[in-house]
């Protein structure tokens, strides 16, 4: 068994990572750290895992070497303490934004000057659907952001085929409260948060840079991203408006999506004619590593509306990290990620 540890395991992303890893057929979780909960059962932070494991949180200073170390800390922590982390493992997977962007200028635009550009260049972007071969050969992977992941997967087939006006893409992502993390703040206070439809980033969201980095492989892509917090705990649902350079039929769109995603184990085309769940619905994906993608062509324009949904904590974070680990280690890419979700929920 491969020994893995989680640095920063008391947050929601770390908790989901632990949940998945505890059932993974090829790994043993050696340590999970939390400075504030050191010595306490992991069930203290993740009550769904009570009785499922005897693990207790370790102090980060007591972290021992392992085969693969997951970094699930707030942005800026991994890059800021890299010299202490590097001797601890041969392989790393970082769930934060520290090493996602390969362009220092883009990083500076949204996060400030990168403290370790020398280390940043050693990390590989971890979204399997766009970087599978590179991940297979990597020892350091940075997973994608949740809003970026759902947006990239929605748009990628059309940018790859050169079908899109590159500067006219608008993405509206609705997100759940878990994107805000486990630490409470004024905005997460129940009377404030409950029932809200809060456009918390109409423009200037950090994940814009990441989306443009990946779609920019296929031309000078510019995307216009807005993110709205809604009454939901888990989930990110993207409604992307793209404007096609040529007239396409529904049959064309089906063909493009099938050609791109039929072999992907965690991408499903969901665009049904009947029923209640005709388009991707994030609540059905809670706990799963799926990204569901649907579409509708505007009969009166060249607009194509692409709808996509994920669980922000799984495909948008922990599940994506485990999928990347499976590739890095040469295992079945789907190992540990077979949960199909719940219905009704």
């Amino acid at each position: 068994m491969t020994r893995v540890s989680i640095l920063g395991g008391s947050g929601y992303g770390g908790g989901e990572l632990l949940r998945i890893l505890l059932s993974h057929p090829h790994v043993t979780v050696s340590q999970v750290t939390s400075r504030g909960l050191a010595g306490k059962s992991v069930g203290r932070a993740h009550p769904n895992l009570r009785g499922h494991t005897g693990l207790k949180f370790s102090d980060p200073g007591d972290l021992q070497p392992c085969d693969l170390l997951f970094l699930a800390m707030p942005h800026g922590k991994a890059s800021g303490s890299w010299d202490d982390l590097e001797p601890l493992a041969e392989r790393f997977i970082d769930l934060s934004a520290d090493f996602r962007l390969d362009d220092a200028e883009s990083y500076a635009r949204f996060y400030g000057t990168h403290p370790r550009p020398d280390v940043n260049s050693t990390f590989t972007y971890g979204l399997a659907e766009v970087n599978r071969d590179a991940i297979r050969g990597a020892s350091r992977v940075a997973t994608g952001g949740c809003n970026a992941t759902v947006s990239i997967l929605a748009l990628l087939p059309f940018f790859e085929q050169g079908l899109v006006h590159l500067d006219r893409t608008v993405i509206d992502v609705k997100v759940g409260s878990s994107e805000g993390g486990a630490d409470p703040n004024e905005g997460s206070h129940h009377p404030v948060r409950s029932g809200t439809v809060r456009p918390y980033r109409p423009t200037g969201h950090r994940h814009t840079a990441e989306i443009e980095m990946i779609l920019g492989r296929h031309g000078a892509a510019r995307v216009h991203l807005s993110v709205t917090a809604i009454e939901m705990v888990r989930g990110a649902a993207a409604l992307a408006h793209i404007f096609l350079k040529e007239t396409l039929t529904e049959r064309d769109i089906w063909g493009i999506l099938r050609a791109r995603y039929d072999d992907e184990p965690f991408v499903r085309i969901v665009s049904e004619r009947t029923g209640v769940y005709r388009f991707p619905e994030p609540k059905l994906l809670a706990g799963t590593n799926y990204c569901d993608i649907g579409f509708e062509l505007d009969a009166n324009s060249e607009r194509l509306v692409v709808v996509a949904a994920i669980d922000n904590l799984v495909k948008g974070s922990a599940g994506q990290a485990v999928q990347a680990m499976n590739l890095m280690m040469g295992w079945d890419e789907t190992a540990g990620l077979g949960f199909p979700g719940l219905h009704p929920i």
Partner: protein
Amino acid sequence: MPVLTTIECPVCWGGVNVSADVMLSELLDCGDCGAELEVTALSPALQLAEAPMSAEDWGE
């Protein structure tokens, strides 16, 4: 039940498996897009058409 043939869905152009003993007017579901399909002809070629749907009111 033996599969007679795979025929193209008229809604999403995916493959719909049709069994050997299919009957005229029988209703089938497309596994890809979920459309309800009606068998409208058995010969000279098997034909499927989207079955009539009751309209939904989504508050529009």
